[in-house]
């Protein structure tokens, strides 16, 4: 499975230690892989560990207070074994990241042009002048109008959508082979979101960059991801190709999420079928299935035995004792 993989995440575990508090495992044995030119989605609700997973891959977790286990193999090298400086080098060159809030990831007192060109100077060894020309090119490519003028502007002078484009330009500056986008459009209006998502899709298509897309919006996933990992309480509970996932969600949590969302094209007035309770009701994974208190399919075994991840359907993986059965077989 991982022979083609650009990135192979195995049993990634992140535990936070805080004084006076019990250690907290935010990411609990997450495994997935990403092939070049593919878009892999990580979805799940607030606090399920999406951002911590991406920060662990990028080596951006605080060195103190967080223990990271498992492996993150990028083209044969386990990134978790690299030194801080080696990892910094990698980040500029092979791995790019786009965050939800572009303002906090741009330097407020350095002009946009300088921020992009610095990346080019540092990682591609371009001289300043050449880097500036290429920076303008990059801004143009991500659809920022009048890029030459924008070079001398500061982040606060750009709109939210344009800042996100500038950040994508910076991430692209090193021609990364893997891009991680963590809720890249959550802070944006839908019309701007549509622009940014189209930009990301085009990027993957044209450059062969692999993309890990982190979002809580299943609509975004449906449009962009080749395959999807659904996270719940720090673990992947279902993995499937996107058409299969949406047509035949097998995990009761995935199924519940889909039934919870009002759809723009759905029947109106129909009552939504929410997942009951909230993540506060979860039980620990080690004593069974964390989702059991909220699960309509729960059996006695679910509170006694932790479900393992098993193969389910072509390319699919599932962690559940009593999955949803879809009677009418969809032929697609």
């Amino acid at each position, binding site marked *: 499975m991982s022979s083609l993989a650009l990135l192979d995440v195995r049993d990634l575990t992140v535990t936070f230690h805080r004084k006076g508090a019990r250690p907290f495992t935010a990411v609990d044995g997450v495994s997935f892989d990403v092939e070049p030119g593919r878009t892999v989605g990580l979805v799940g*609700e607030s606090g399920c560990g999406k951002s911590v997973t991406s920060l662990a891959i990028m080596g951006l977790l605080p060195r103190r207070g967080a223990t990271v286990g498992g492996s993150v193999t990028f083209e044969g090298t386990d990134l978790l074994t690299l030194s801080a400086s080696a990892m910094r080098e990698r980040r500029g060159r092979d791995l790019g990241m786009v965050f939800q809030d572009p303002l906090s990831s741009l330097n407020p007192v350095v002009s946009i042009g300088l921020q992009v060109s610095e990346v080019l100077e540092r990682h591609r060894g371009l001289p300043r002048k050449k880097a500036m020309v290429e920076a303008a090119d990059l801004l143009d*490519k*991500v*659809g920022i*109008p*009048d890029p030459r003028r924008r070079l001398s*502007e*500061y982040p*606060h*002078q*750009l*709109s*939210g*959508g*344009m800042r996100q*484009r500038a950040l994508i330009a910076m991430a692209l500056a090193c*021609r990364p082979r893997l891009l991680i986008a963590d809720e890249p459009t959550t802070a*944006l*209006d*839908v019309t*701007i*979101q*549509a*622009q*940014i*998502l*189209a*930009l990301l899709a*085009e*990027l993957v298509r*044209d*450059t062969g960059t692999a993309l890990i897309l982190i979002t*809580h919006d*299943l*609509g975004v*996933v*449906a*449009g962009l991801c080749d395959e999807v990992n659904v996270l719940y309480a720090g673990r992947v509970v279902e993995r499937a190709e996107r*058409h299969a996932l*949406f*047509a035949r969600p097998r995990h009761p949590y995935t199924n*519940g*999420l*889909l039934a*919870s*969302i*009002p*759809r*723009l*094209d*759905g029947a*109106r007035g129909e*009552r*939504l*079928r*929410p*997942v009951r309770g*909230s*993540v506060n009701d979860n039980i620990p994974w080690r004593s069974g299935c964390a989702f059991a208190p909220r699960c309509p399919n729960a059996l006695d075994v679910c509170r006694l035995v932790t479900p393992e991840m098993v193969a389910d359907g072509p390319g699919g993986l599932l962690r559940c004792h009593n999955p949803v059965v879809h009677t009418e077989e969809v032929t*697609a």
Partner: protein
Amino acid sequence: MTESTEPTSSTVDGDVLVDVQGLEVHFPIKGGLVLDRTIGHVLAVDGVSLRVTRGETYGLVGESGCGKSTLGRAMLRLVEPTGGRVVFDGTDLSALRGESLRRMRRRMQMVFQDPLSSLDPRQSVESILVEGMRAHGLDRDRAATATRLRELLSSVGLPASALRKYPHEFSGGQRQRIGIARALTVRPDLIIADEPVSALDVSVQAQVINLMADLQQEFGLTYLVIAHDLAVVRHISDRVGVMYLGGLVEEAGSEALYADPLHPYTRALLSAVPVPDPAVEDRRERILLAGDLPSPAAPPPGCRFHTRCPWRQPERCDTERPELREVLPGQRVACHYAEDIRAGRIQPHEVRPELVEAGATGPLDTSAAGPASVTEILGGP
């Protein structure tokens, strides 16, 4: 500045609870050395007329900064309108002062987006709930109040034991239930809910949406729901108003608006909403809007949407502000060419993005940018 348009009588049947007429909220922009000079105005709400019928849910959508919250707050006179009026159940609110305004306010309550920041962390749930009742003299008899609070909590799906707890002890969805219960303590007729579910996880969001529907039935409430999530708004609203830069550009029954959007902006907005279904997503056509959202401090002349409108025509669009007029029964649209667009006599065309200065337009940063199409712009590095 005001081009208020009277809703035609056929737009609204039944019993009007709130009648908003040409409402304006213009915030002054202060400048000069000691910030005492008014150098301009943010036209946050600029001539909005709409009616909310008793018992219905009216949804208000539009992108960040278009004036939804300001409109909602102005309807309750939580911000003072600079023009137009709001008639609530036959009474012109702008004429009310002091005690009579306070009495009227009991009948209109607000529910906010962020349940935690709108609840005082040092107050127990009980004291949060009693506060409003006390303010309106509804807390006369202790036993009756206690019964009422317990009933209310059970209506919003919380146990009576919640009364002695504090906001931080609840999850986001539970806190929103508390916010709703607080609004209900004073037996309002109208609830203005500003992004009531957008801070919640989807599984919990659905619980609160269902709850709001149940409470509407149980207490005969009228809702004005402000939200940027169009799928949510469509689901819960009977009628929907779409705002753009301080004005209403389209208003229609929820079903009609989504089935047959007439305003170019509504069309673009709807086409941009992702649908959680890959089969649908794969064959959808998006109308990607070009350019920045102009600043409400300097809205474009004529049709406010003309700088980004793919259907824009050389005549009228940039000179004459279109009035909201009934184009189909019950469907009002502010576009000069709504009929031609609907009939396909006018085709959309490419729009070159115009540059809007985000930093130079005052205290706002709600603009957004981008070319009309991303095709071709990424040649690959």
